[in-house]
């Protein structure tokens, strides 16, 4: 992981906007909360990218495709909340709508 620790990369106002839309009764958000989110998002994207890339490498390819991201999501427990998002994208009706702990049957 690159040790870049510059100014917060993701725009705080945009993050705050997304936070406000995340639910129907979101409480007030402290000015510092988006800062924490900014870093967390960075780490999240880094992890998802890394895992997707591992799938790409397994396929001996040099271009990271959408399907690699989907595979990475399916193979990682904590990314369960993304299963519907990636399955909608690849329009695969075989994937279950409800999240489940073990998704080994879907390994591509």
């Amino acid at each position: 992981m690159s040790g870049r620790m510059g100014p917060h990369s993701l725009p705080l106002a945009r993050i705050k906007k997304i936070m406000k839309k995340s639910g129907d009764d979101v409480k007030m958000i402290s000015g510092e909360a988006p800062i924490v989110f900014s870093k967390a998002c960075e780490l999240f994207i880094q992890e998802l990218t890394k895992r997707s890339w591992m799938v790409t490498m397994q396929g001996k390819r040099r271009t990271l495709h959408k399907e690699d991201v989907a595979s990475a999501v399916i193979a990682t427990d904590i990314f369960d909340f993304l299963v519907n998002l990636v399955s909608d994208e690849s329009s695969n009706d075989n994937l279950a709508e409800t999240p489940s702990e073990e998704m080994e049957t879907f390994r591509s």
Partner: protein
Amino acid sequence: MEPMDIVGKSKEDASLPKATMTKIIKEMLPPDVRVARDAQDLLIECCVEFINLVSSESNEVCSKEDKRTIAPEHVLKALEVLGFGEYIEEVYAAYEQHKIETMDSLKGGKWSNGAEMTEEEAAAEQQRMFAEARARMNGGATAPPKQPDLNPSLES
């Protein structure tokens, strides 16, 4: 580059800037690796969904503690609850770093001490700077300072 790229899903009017996201993504990969456009878009959508998820959980953590404002501590707790405990250390470090950098702008320069100054020391520095500013003001005014609780050992 489309910095205002909006992903048009039902609840999401706001998305994250593609340029910044692409930079973060590319930094994780070897230089010769390419990222398909649809993969980039999907990664961004996933990130937005991540914010939604953690926001909802933070909101709940905040409610359980009977607070009215979502604070960084609530977000950190939410990360732990959702299984992203590994991120907490780095996230907290970035948060602390930001607090120091914010103080730094008051002084207008870098701390000679490096990043090891505690919050108390930083607050003390702040007080000292305010005292100096007060002294400068008092030096210019004709009337003597009237506030009795001012530190009598001000330097002009």
